[in-house]
């Protein structure tokens, strides 16, 4: 794995490997000293063309727990109108020694462009591009769901997939990079996915996607999903006639108190609710739902750091492993095994 650009081209073996590595990373995060020397001397650049404090600090925490040096670069707004191109920015950062570029961009495909244009050699991690993909969000969702599914089935999660799990993804599918990345990854891991949205917020061309489509959230809940993923809806969409009003959206596609109660009525005691954040409480999700024991929202945030540690670790210590090891083997480091692979720190 040279880059992490999308979940569509992620094999099942790679996906499970990332999730299993993330489990090991999660164990590190539970320790008193939450740090591994694995990426010591490596530099990770967070290149953010779009504001996203949550994602940026998650990547920053992940890189720092692996002992990498972190450079944050916020290229706000339209970079071209301000002068410097993506190419120049990326080459500048690489010239300063970036080994990996974590890129968040408002334009779909910008990370692919960075990885395939030949402008730079660094590993590229897509931290969300336009309405295309957000692979690390999908991985943290899958990680969270896999733990839930393992608990439901009474097994350990390492090495498992999501076979048989039923997941509803609800909301603005059209503009959601999370929905796309989730769908490809959850399908790869064996889950069944239903997309629930008003017809205006489903893309033309969705018919070929490996999922069921529904316009009716109550009907989708009656089909007994094991997890419900609520997507953020931007109220501005209302002005572009995607739906008549925020209230109507909330009544028809919001996870409100009535639907929270419906899960109990259906006897779905294990069904969980996810949301990638930030939440619009009262629009796509009610406070009661967001704060209920079913809510996985904070677990998702916590798992995000583990999954991003795993991704950075696998990308940067993979083909350059010999470099990493020679650095880790210098006398005053922690034992080599802990420095190069966190296997022995495994939980359980």
């Amino acid at each position: 794995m040279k880059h992490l650009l999308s979940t569509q081209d992620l094999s099942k073996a790679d996906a499970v490997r990332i999730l299993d590595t993330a489990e090991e990373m999660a164990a590190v995060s539970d320790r008193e000293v939450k740090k591994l020397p694995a990426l010591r001397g490596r530099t990770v650049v967070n290149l953010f063309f779009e504001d996203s404090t949550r994602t940026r600090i998650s990547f920053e925490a992940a890189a720092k727990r692996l002992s990498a040096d972190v450079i944050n670069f916020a290229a706000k707004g339209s970079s071209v109108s301000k002068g410097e191109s993506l190419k120049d920015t990326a080459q500048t950062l690489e010239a300063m020694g970036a080994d990996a570029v974590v890129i968040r961009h408002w334009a779909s495909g910008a990370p692919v462009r960075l990885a395939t244009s030949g402008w730079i050699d660094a590993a590229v991690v897509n931290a969300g591009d336009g309405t295309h993909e957000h692979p690390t969000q999908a991985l943290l969702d899958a990680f969270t769901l896999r733990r839930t599914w393992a608990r439901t089935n009474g097994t350990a999660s390492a090495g498992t997939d999501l076979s048989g799990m039923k997941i509803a993804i609800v909301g603005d599918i059209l503009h959601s990079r999370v929905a796309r990345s989730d769908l490809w990854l959850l399908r790869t891991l064996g889950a069944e996915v239903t997309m629930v949205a008003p017809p205006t917020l489903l893309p033309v061309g969705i018919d070929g996607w490996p999922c069921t489509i529904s316009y009716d959230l109550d009907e989708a809940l009656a089909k007994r999903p094991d997890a419900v993923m609520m997507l953020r809806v931007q109220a501005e969409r209302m002005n572009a006639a995607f739906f008549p009003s925020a209230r109507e959206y909330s009544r028809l596609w919001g996870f409100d108190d009535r639907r929270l109660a419906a899960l109990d009525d259906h006897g779905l005691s294990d069904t969980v609710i996810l949301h990638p954040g930030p939440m619009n409480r009262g629009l796509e999700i009610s406070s009661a739902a967001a704060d209920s024991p079913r809510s996985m929202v904070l677990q998702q945030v916590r798992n995000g750091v583990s999954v991003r540690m795993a991704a950075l670790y696998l990308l940067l210590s993979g083909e350059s492993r010999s470099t990493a090891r020679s650095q880790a083997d210098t006398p005053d480091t922690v034992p080599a095994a802990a420095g190069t692979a966190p296997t022995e720190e495994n939980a359980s």
Partner: protein
Amino acid sequence: MSTTGSYLIKGARVVGADAADLLVENGRITGVGSSLQASGATVLDADGLIALPGMVDLHTHLREPGREDAETVETGTRAAALGGFTAVHAMANSSPVADTAGVVEQVFALGQQAGWAEVRPVGAVTVGLAGERLAELGAMADSRARVRVFSDDGMCVSDPVLMRRALEYVKAFDGVIAQHAQEPRLTEGAQMNEGAVSAVLGMAGWPAVAEESIIARDVLLAQHVDSRLHVCHVSTAGSVEIIRWAKHRGIKVTAEVTPHHLWLTDELVRSYDPVFKVNPPLRTDEDVLALRAGLADGTIDVIGTDHAPHPSEAKECEWAQAAMGMTGLETALSVVQHTMIESGLIGWADFARITSAMPARIGRLAHQGQPLEAGSAANITLVDPAARWTVDPAAMATKGRNSPFAGRELPGRVVATFLNGHPTVLDGKLNTPFADGSAGQAAGQPQAQSREG
């Protein structure tokens, strides 16, 4: 720098038929037959070559004035000559916009100075391409540039009343409105064809209906006011159907298709490489096949290259930031040969119709697009149909490096291009520009040459 030479082209297959000799003297074809003799004429061995009437492009962006970093009339017409073209229509979206007699005369004069191809300026339909009020169409028609084709290309004349008035008004001087059919509200922020690929790539879609709804409206308007409508760069199967229907009803509509829409599809956008970003966007296989069929059966009348050179920085960026457009002059013949002739859909006589006779007729170019026979103006393209070459944008005459065909092997090579009896291209390389004998090389006195044809 003799421009009055005579040439004897020996043994070319005339428009793909039997081999014959062509005698070119004083800018005209003076004889077609076997074993022609002419003392003093330069003899060209054209064995194995096909002689075609010089190609005429209805849709070229020469970028001058204003964006000389992207292309100039000089570089663009060099590319045209190398591509086998003897005339190009320079689109109006220059800076300043070609919406006055002054600008179209400037572009026209630059074309004459360059001498690589006849440059016919297209006049803007509306002032500044803003779609608000008519430009002085009559002044451009009466200018030395004698504009007959009017277009806001790049922008759609979306206001139905303005479109109606434009169609009506150009009847006064036998003009034609060439519409860029794109409903603006349906394509706000559009990046690529709306369909299965855009859904996965997460890009704002440019739906086929945005093109088709404007064409449907415009053919009905053209029928209502009995005027001439030309539809630029048709890109969808539905558009072909609407135009076919309109022609059956006798509506005076003509249509063009670009070489790239005859071959490439939106699958290429998966690379996010902006060299594939173009307007209208690359569509689907189904659309490509419908366009080919429409071109073969005459529903689509002409090839228009929509040659749109851009400086490299306009493409070395994120897809959403990149400029729309592809170069096309130097690949058009080969791409049409590949997609239409080698697929068995048309022959070389059809090729001459769609690349020369019809575009010249639509643009009202009297001495272009004539049959290769005695008495015709000597605008001739000699093609080696057996040649194969690999597209290398860096080797092209256009300033634009944005060819979507880069690296592909294509059939057919332009060996020579004759403009008014003068070889602008020989042995596949630029020769010398045409210079009118009465005016001398760049000597002014444009009135002496502007009234011919």
